[in-house]
């Protein structure tokens, strides 16, 4: 295996005219460039959806506030949810998967580079289409604006009776278009992992990162397809006189819920498995130990994949299902806590007996463990159906899933940013700014989302643009809103750090973390062809074997 690489003629980017280098970015099929495109695109949408969240929180800072109108508020939470799920978190995760999987499995690119580019541009245009509704669509009351039916878009609110104009169509088509992009990327990841591994890398020797993304991609294929089907049915209802969800003509509102959540719940695992993937790479390196219980981790991942397909109706405990159906979804929901718990214990087992270094990526991963533990436990509370008859659709749920998506996934994503930034840019980030970002964000996160549970327990439903005084909700909402500004400050420090480090950071070197997976064996940033020669491996930690020829892993695995 070679640790150096040579630049091929024509790969030098310096001194090229701007137009021609932009043209390179638009027409690229290189998995690393597409990965960076995904990530930068998601960063832009993170800012937009973050501003939407801030406005939502300012409106809710006190009862009977009138910072925005109810119509605007409803558009804001619809756009915030849709954007964050489809155009922030998914592109972030696809971006990292795109960038890292070929490097980690010793391949020169994804299996289908052109499909890769196609998928990215579908996702990108899906996001643009959603926001084009601001100029191209009419809202519920004809005021010309963004969709306002909620990111879950329950029937029959989406029918033409209740949603006049075209805002709902923009929502539908944006998700349809980006859905094709997601399925394309998922197929690409599956093909890459199965067909492009370097010599010696059996499935049992792949980094956990590849395993988790493989299961994620399988889930995307299974769960985005029903969503796409439902969107097509909704378009048929709205424009071709169909009655799938048209309750006034005998259609079923509940069928939409099933379609949506049979996508929506596995989607949570689509988002969280790649976050687990980051943690499974970062925690071992900064604990200086291999991942504890690799085969069990793989098994737990596959178990999560399967079980997550059978829990969707726990989002529907209040719609009046039979007690038998409720019981089934209680047991399947609680069952998923077992493999998830195994993962948390295995990460703890990895840290146990190690020498933990508190670099920024590790700080974010430790916070992730703590927060994901709480998110899992509040999940169990809601899994107990009768408890959920109270908690469902209350602010408790909002707090719970933000604990998963921000406290779990976004924290891991920040960890991943700091961990792989040196590889992607060739520059080291500022550790001081990284730690400042961490502390600002964790203070803001806990102010916002810890206290958000309480109004839910006190009966505050979600998706309300204002609330009555005297319900005991006021103080909690004030604290929640203040926390948002700490988080916003953290995000600004993060972006500042990325930009400053990109231009002014110290050279990072090929392997700044003394890590063990293949991406650290090549240059930072890697050349277009990734590896000078295709590596061959003997164990799960090829670079450990290289660095410790006296005590290689393959003797024990």
């Amino acid at each position, binding site marked *: 295996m070679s640790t150096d690489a040579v630049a091929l003629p024509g790969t030098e980017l310096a001194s090229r005219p701007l137009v021609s280098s932009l043209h390179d970015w638009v027409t690229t099929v290189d998995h690393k460039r597409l990965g960076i495109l995904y990530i930068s695109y998601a960063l832009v949408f993170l800012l937009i959806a973050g501003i939407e969240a801030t406005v939502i929180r300012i409106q809710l800072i006190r009862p009977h506030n009138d910072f925005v109108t109810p119509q605007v508020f*409803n558009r804001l939470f619809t756009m915030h949810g849709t954007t964050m799920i489809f155009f922030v978190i998914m592109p972030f995760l696809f971006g990292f998967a795109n960038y890292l999987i070929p490097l980690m499995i010793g391949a020169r690119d994804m299996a289908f580079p052109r499909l890769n580019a196609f998928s990215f541009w579908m996702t990108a245009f899906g996001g643009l289409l959603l926001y084009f509704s601001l100029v191209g669509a009419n809202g519920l009351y004809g005021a010309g604006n963004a969709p306002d039916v909620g990111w879950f878009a329950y029937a029959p609110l989406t029918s033409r009776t*209740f949603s006049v104009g075209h805002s709902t169509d923009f929502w539908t088509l944006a998700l349809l278009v980006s859905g094709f992009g997601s399925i394309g990327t998922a197929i690409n990841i599956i093909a890459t992992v199965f067909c492009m591994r370097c010599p010696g890398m059996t499935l049992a020797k792949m980094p956990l990162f590849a395993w988790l993304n493989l299961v994620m991609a399988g889930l995307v294929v299974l769960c985005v397809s029903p969503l796409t089907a439902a969107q097509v049915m909704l378009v048929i209802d709205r424009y071709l006189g169909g009655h799938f969800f048209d309750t006034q003509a005998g259609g079923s509102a509940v069928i939409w819920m099933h379609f949506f959540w049979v996508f929506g719940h596995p989607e949570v695992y689509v988002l969280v498995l790649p976050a687990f993937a980051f943690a499974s790479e970062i925690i071992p390196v900064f604990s200086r130990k291999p991942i504890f*219980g690799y085969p069990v981790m793989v098994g737990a991942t596959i178990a999560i994949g399967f079980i997550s397909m059978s829990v969707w109706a726990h989002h529907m405990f209040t719609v009046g299902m039979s007690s038998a159906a409720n019981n089934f979804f209680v047991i399947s929901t609680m069952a998923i806590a077992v493999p998830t718990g195994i993962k948390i214990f295995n990460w703890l087992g990895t840290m146990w007996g190690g020498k933990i270094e508190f670099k920024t990526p590790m700080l974010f991963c430790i916070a992730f463990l703590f927060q994901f533990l709480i998110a899992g436990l509040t999940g169990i509370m809601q899994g107990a159906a*009768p408890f959920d008859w109270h908690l469902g659709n209350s602010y408790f749920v909002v707090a719970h899933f933000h604990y998963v998506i921000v406290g779990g996934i976004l924290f891991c994503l920040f960890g991943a940013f700091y961990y792989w930034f040196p590889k992607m840019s060739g520059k080291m980030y500022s550790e001081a700014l990284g730690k400042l970002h961490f502390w600002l964000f964790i203070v803001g996160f806990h102010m916002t989302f810890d206290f958000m549970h309480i109004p839910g327990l*006190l*009966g*505050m439903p979600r998706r*309300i643009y204002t609330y009555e005084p005297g*319900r005991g*909700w006021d103080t909690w909402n004030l604290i929640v809103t203040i926390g948002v500004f700490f988080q916003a400050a953290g995000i600004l420090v993060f972006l500042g750090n990325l930009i400053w480090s990109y231009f002014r950071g110290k050279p990072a070197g090929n392997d700044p973390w003394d890590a063990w997976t293949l991406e650290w064996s090549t240059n930072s940033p890697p050349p277009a062809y990734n590896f000078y020669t295709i590596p061959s491996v003997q164990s799960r930690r090829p670079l450990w074997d290289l660095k410790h020829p006296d005590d290689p892993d393959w003797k024990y695995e």
Partner: protein
Amino acid sequence: MKRPISYPVIVLMCGRAIAFADTAQPWSPTNIFAPASTPAKSIFGLSLFVLAVTGAIFLIVFALLVYSVAKFRKRRNDDGREPPQVYGSNQVELAWTIIPILIVVALFMATARVIAFVQKTPAPSNAIAVTAIGHQFWWEYRYADLGVVTANELHVPVSDPAHPTPTFIKLLSADTDHSFWVPRLAGKTDLIPNHPNNMWIDPQETGIYLGQCAQYCGTQHAKMLLRVYVQSKDEFERWIQQQRQPAFVNDAVSEGQRIFETTACINCHAVSGTVANGRFGPDLTHLMSRDTIAAGAATNTPENLRLWIRDPNTIKPGSLMPAMELNEQELDAVAAYLETLR
């Protein structure tokens, strides 16, 4: 009727220790931990059990996390050698697989009992039957057996635990999805068009219980508030008798009545015994017997009523009631007429 599920006393004691679980002085009128009706109480019992189990898990795992972060941090005087490389342990993996499975089974069984109890309790013969119909953005209540139709303020009799008189509510929707949630009385149940649902309550103390729509139903979802008046049996009986009367007729306000009946008001509103028989908006036959207007968004005062008729958007922007464009005299006359509908 079956008694609510009783959990061990010790769990209830723990519950009391939660500062805001004092049922006598609810910290918030919509606190889920201050149940006042059997379904809410049995959910409360389960909640405490689940909270106790998850709380214990949290303490153990959190302690392990803090311990390993503190104990295994890299020391200042580190020798630079790698720690022992441990790849896993089947015994340990087995332990942290089997123990969670047992916990899950216990949680599931406790949950299944409460599901069966709340969902499968049949209506006794003396139960009050009410049909609640969700509208954008108000509630219609129809007591079919008693011949009463009202809006937004649900009246039910108090239920003596020794001789329960529960209220069974059939939930329908006239347009989009809604959800009926009065936290101190029961968990929420959705109102879905073409999908009738049922729930029941048996409030054991008189008083006003608050709640609101808990499923996003359109622009004014936030101001689709719920009020449940739990009354003694005599008071409830008097209320029913009063609601069954036809609308009060008073010649002094015949001008207002004429305007009301010759404008678009009657397309949506009904006043029994008159030509007004609209169904899209609340029944106004006994409007003045209600404490609030606009589904609880404003108190029912003459000023608010005038404001509401003049421009509903000032109280509830996006409400489906149009501004009626009446001149001042017409407004006075209509308001005077409505104020006689006791």
